[in-house]
């Protein structure tokens, strides 16, 4: 047997081993991702649609249907988490349900974790409706009255007693209904929710189902689609670029950080502030705007101590500890970082550093209790798995090429 013939008869155990290594190595190593991710149009349109929902205008909720089981969880959970985080970041009321019964446990797990990260409260910001049999009847019935199909939530509390359900009666009060499924359940939402009730619907599916969804995208029956783990990663990055542009994303590897937050009250004189601002390239215009007529103001120090703190941020922490205390905002965002938000951001994105570029007048109560040593144990699921997905696809392409080279070379020689 010559080389070309051997190339065509690689033992399947070797193929399995190579693929296993290709998947495991990128998961263990921390892989640097491009600074910007160009999301596919189908992913971007879901993001844009949720952005267009105005939580302060006519009250509109987002309904998520967790229609998958553990088999497809690795592909669909990153999508579900990314959408929930986006909804929480925009303060949009969230309703979560399931058509197959396994979805309720997955939904409960994700909601509990992310609500804690974002400081959201059950019954006020979100609700888990649970599961009811007969998917067609459930999807159709909710078009009339949601509480007719789900009189109580997952924990047997009547929906009428939950503040989150205030003003939300049926599909008319939804900004989006989105289904996450590894099967063809997405069809029910097109046929029985969008068509009769005109509610905007979107879907998150496994990568193998992508081709089946395009007719519905082309006809605008779906506002968009998240396809496979890749879309989960894209969506995570879209949310990050929109809401937390200066936060650095960490993948697996170092997923446990200590976040220490201290609050102080301090009367500073303006020279101290200006000198410190110059030292760290802080925005002076913003700084001057925050000084009151006496040249004094209260500030809060939000201090992050990370295991891999860079020299820059360590220096900044030391300087701030010695000198001043500030409320910090993220570049380009109207987001005052207080204790809760900083916790949420740190937990959410696994930050390794924050760029401080603005100062705002202190709004928090300086007497707030000190919060220390909060353990972080979250990471961006899709972003972290993306390199492994890419590596496995490359390996498959490589083996197909090798198989073809071997086949045609051997045939020519014969």
């Amino acid at each position, binding site marked *: 047997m010559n080389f070309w013939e051997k190339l065509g008869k*690689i033992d*399947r155990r070797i*193929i*399995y081993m190579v*693929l*296993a290594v290709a*998947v495991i190595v990128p998961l263990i190593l921390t892989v640097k991702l*491009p600074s*910007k*991710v*160009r999301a*596919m*149009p189908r992913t971007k349109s879901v993001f844009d649609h949720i952005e267009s929902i105005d939580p302060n205008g006519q009250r509109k909720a987002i309904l998520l249907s967790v229609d998958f*089981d*553990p*088999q*497809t*969880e*690795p592909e669909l959970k990153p999508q579900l988490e990314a959408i929930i985080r986006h909804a929480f970041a925009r303060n949009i009321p969230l309703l979560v349900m399931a058509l197959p019964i396994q979805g309720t*446990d997955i939904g409960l*797990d994700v909601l509990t974790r992310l609500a804690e990260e974002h400081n959201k409260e059950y019954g006020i910001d979100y609700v888990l409706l649970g599961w*009811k*049999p*007969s998917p*067609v*009847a*459930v999807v*159709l*019935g909710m078009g*009339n009255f949601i509480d*007719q*199909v789900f009189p109580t939530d997952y924990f*047997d509390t009547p929906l009428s007693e939950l503040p989150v359900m205030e003003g939300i009666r049926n599909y008319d009060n939804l900004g989006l209904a989105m289904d996450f499924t590894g099967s063809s359940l997405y069809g029910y939402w097109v046929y029985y929710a969008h068509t*009769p009730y005109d509610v905007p619907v979107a879907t998150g599916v496994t*990568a193998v189902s*992508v*081709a*089946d969804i*395009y*007719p519905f*995208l*082309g006809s605008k029956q779906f506002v968009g689609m998240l396809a*496979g783990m*890749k879309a989960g990663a894209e969506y995570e990055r879209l949310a990050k670029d929109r809401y937390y542009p200066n936060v650095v994303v960490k993948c697996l590897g170092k997923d446990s950080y200590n976040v220490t937050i201290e609050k102080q009250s301090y009367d500073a004189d303006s020279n101290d502030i200006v000198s410190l601002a110059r030292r760290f390239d802080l925005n002076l215009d913003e700084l001057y705007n925050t000084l009151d007529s006496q040249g004094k103001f209260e500030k809060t120090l939000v201090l992050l101590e990370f295991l891999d703190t860079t020299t820059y941020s360590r220096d900044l922490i030391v300087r701030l500890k010695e000198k001043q205390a500030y409320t910090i905002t993220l570049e380009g965002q109207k987001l005052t970082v207080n204790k809760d938000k900083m916790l949420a951001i740190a937990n959410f994105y696994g930050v390794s550093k924050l760029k401080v570029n603005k100062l705002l007048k202190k709004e928090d109560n300086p007497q707030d209790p000190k919060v220390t040593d909060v353990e972080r144990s979250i990471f961006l699921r899709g972003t972290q798995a993306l390199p492994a*997905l*890419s590596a*496995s*696809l*490359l*390996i*498959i*392409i490589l*083996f*197909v090429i*090798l*198989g*073809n080279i071997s*086949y*045609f070379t051997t045939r020519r020689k014969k």
Partner: protein
Amino acid sequence: MKRRIPLTITLVLGIVLMIQFFIPHQFSQDFKNTALEWLRVIGSFAFIIGLASFVTHHATKIRHKKEGWAYSPIALGALVIMAVIGIIGRAPNMSWLPVTVHGQQIPVFTYLFANFYNYMMVPLGATMFSVLAFYIASAAYRSFRAKSLVSILLLIAAFIIMLSIIFYNVLPLGDLGEWLLSVPNMAAKRGILLGASLGGIATSLKIILGIERGYIGGTK
């Protein structure tokens, strides 16, 4: 009579619910709501039938010692254990036998149900699905050959789609992959979908009119 009654119910409800869709009157809506409630109730009975079928299938396998019968007691045991734990755990005021987890008191059945699900069903399910990737890689290596024009086109399309997923940010392949999905793929899929939908309408009409009687056990 055994067949006429279900055939009559199907005919009447099939036609009435079809017409109802086009009538926005309150009476029509109320009728639809009632029908949907019936649908949910009837749907629940499917679980009883499924459970009976599951138990009968595995009991028969064990009784006749059919191939792979040794797995059947495990399947039945898992069914009984999860059902008992789940039913007791969800019962109201079920707070006895508490277990302390992370400083919180949790009823033991709730704790067991969550752990069986999270640490048995989730990894087992995920493993089964993950194994597919290995089979796909091996099968693609052995049989994905560019032997004919059609297979060459398939191979090129597959490569473009896979590469567009990997390099969507950096190469124009991303746009090419998107074009493949949104133009040729969508055209083909739309044709298939229209054909299947027309077939579905025809079958539904046959069921409503009593021509297709497979759902009541045959054509006699």
